C-alpha cells in the first residue's frame, strides 16, 4: 500500500534544526502536495524518506519497514531531485537505460514517447540540457520508473507554460493508469492545487497542517468589510491573517462554518480563499 510513516523525525545540520520532531503519516495511493516556504524543510524531508541523509533522531518507515540503507524498500521509491545529480557527460538515452537497471518496472517505450512529446532530444548529454529540459528529463525518468512511490521536488522548474500544463496532465494520466503515491513539492501552489488530493504544509521543520485539499478549502473562508464590524465578527473565531486598507479589513478564518446571518447584519462579505492564500496566511509569521 506504500504507507509512509515519519515518527518524531529530527534533522540538524550543525546547530541548525532542519526538521524538528516531525510526525507524518501518508496512507499512500494519493497525490500529495508538500508545501512550505524556503528553508521549511521540504527537501530535507524528501532526502530522509529516500535515505539520502541520516536523521538525527526519529524513525522513517514504508509499510512498516525502516528505509535506512534498505534497498528492497528504496527500490520502490523514485526521487526526482531538484538538483541534477546525473553525470554530465551521460546522454539522456543512457540515463534512461541506467534507470531501467535500477527500476525493473521502468517502461522504456513510454519514456521515449514522453521524450518525443516534450521535444527532448535523447541523444543530448545531460549537461547540455537547459534548466527546463533538465526538469523534463528528470520528470520523464520519474514517470516511466514504474515506482510505487514517486517524489517530485519542484518538477516544473524552468518549464514554459505549455510544458507545465502538459506535465501536470501527464502526472494525472500516469497516476490514473498506474495508481501510486505521488508527492509533489512545489512553490507554484495555485498551479497544483486542483491536482492534489491531500496537502501537507511544513513550517520551521514541523507539519503545521495535513488535510484533504477539498476539506481544507471548505473549512476556510474570508470575511471582509468595514474594520470595526469585521473585528466584531471575528470575536472567538480562529482568525489566521488580516489585510487592511484604511477602513477596510479582510480576514481569513479557519475551521467553523460562516455565520451568514451575522455577516449580513454587519454588512460583511463572505468569500472562499484559494489554497495559495491560505498557505500564505498559515506560514506568514
Amino acid at each position, binding site marked *: 500500500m506504500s504507507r509512509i510513516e515519519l515518527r518524531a523525525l529530527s534533522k540538524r545540520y550543525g546547530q541548525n534544526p532542519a526538521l524538528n520532531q516531525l510526525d507524518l503519516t501518508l496512507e499512500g495511493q494519493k497525490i500529495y502536495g508538500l508545501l512550505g516556504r524556503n528553508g521549511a524543510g521540504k527537501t530535507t524531508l524528501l532526502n530522509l524518506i529516500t535515505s539520502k541523509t541520516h536523521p538525527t533522531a526519529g524513525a522513517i518507515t514504508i509499510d512498516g519497514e525502516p528505509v535506512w540503507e534498505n534497498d528492497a524498500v528504496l527500490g520502490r521509491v523514485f526521487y526526482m531531485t531538484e538538483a541534477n545529480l546525473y553525470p554530465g557527460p551521460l546522454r539522456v538515452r543512457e540515463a534512461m537505460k541506467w534507470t531501467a537497471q535500477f527500476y525493473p518496472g521502468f517502461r522504456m517505450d513510454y519514456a521515449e514517447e514522453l521524450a518525443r512529446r516534450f521535444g527532448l532530444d535523447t541523444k543530448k548529454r545531460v549537461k547540455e540540457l537547459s534548466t527546463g529540459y533538465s526538469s523534463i528529463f528528470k520528470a520523464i525518468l520519474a514517470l516511466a520508473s514504474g515506482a510505487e512511490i514517486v517524489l517530485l521536488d519542484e518538477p516544473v522548474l524552468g518549464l514554459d507554460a505549455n510544458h507545465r500544463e502538459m506535465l501536470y496532465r501527464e502526472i*494525472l494520466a500516469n497516476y490514473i493508469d498506474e495508481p501510486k503515491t505521488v508527492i509533489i513539492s512545489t512553490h507554484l501552489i495555485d498551479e497544483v492545487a486542483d491536482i492534489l488530493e491531500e496537502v501537507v504544509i511544513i513550517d520551521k521543520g514541523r507539519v503545521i497542517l495535513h488535510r484533504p485539499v477539498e476539506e481544507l478549502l471548505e473549512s476556510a473562508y474570508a470575511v471582509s468589510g468595514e474594520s470595526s464590524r469585521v473585528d466584531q465578527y471575528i470575536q472567538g473565531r480562529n482568525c489566521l491573517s488580516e489585510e487592511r486598507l484604511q477602513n477596510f479589513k479582510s480576514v481569513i478564518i479557519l475551521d467553523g462554518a460562516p455565520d451568514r446571518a451575522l455577516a449580513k447584519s454587519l454588512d460583511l462579505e463572505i*468569500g472562499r480563499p484559494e489554497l495559495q492564500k491560505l498557505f500564505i496566511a498559515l506560514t506568514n509569521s
Partner: protein
Amino acid sequence: MRLDFDSEQPIYIQLAEAIEDDILKGILPEETQVPSTTELSVMLKINPATARKGVNLLVDEGILYKKRGVGMFVARGALRRIKKKRRAEFYQSFVLPLLAEAQKLDVSMGELIEMIERGLPDEQD
C-alpha cells in the same frame, strides 16, 4: 466544458454544474455518453477523486447513469430534472443578488422591471 477556478464553489460542484450546463445547451443530449472521470480529470487538470465526486453527484441525482463496463451516460429526463432543480434555485441564486445590487445602487423597482423588459427577447408579432 469549462470550470471557473476563481469561483467560490468547490471544484466538484463546479464540475457537476459544467456537465449540467452542457446538457442544458444540448452539447450532451440525453442517452449520449459523457467523458469518463479519467478524461475529465486529465482535461480539466483536477484530481481524479474530485472528478469522481462531481460525476457521482449527478449519478445520485439521476442525471447521469452508469452502464457497467461501458461508461457514463446522460439519463433520459435529465434535461427536465436539471431545469426543475435550477428553477428552484433561481430565486436564491439570481433574484436575491439582483435585488441586493439594485438596492446598493438605488435602482427603483420600476427601473428594474423596465430593464428586465428591455432585456427580454422581442415577442413575436
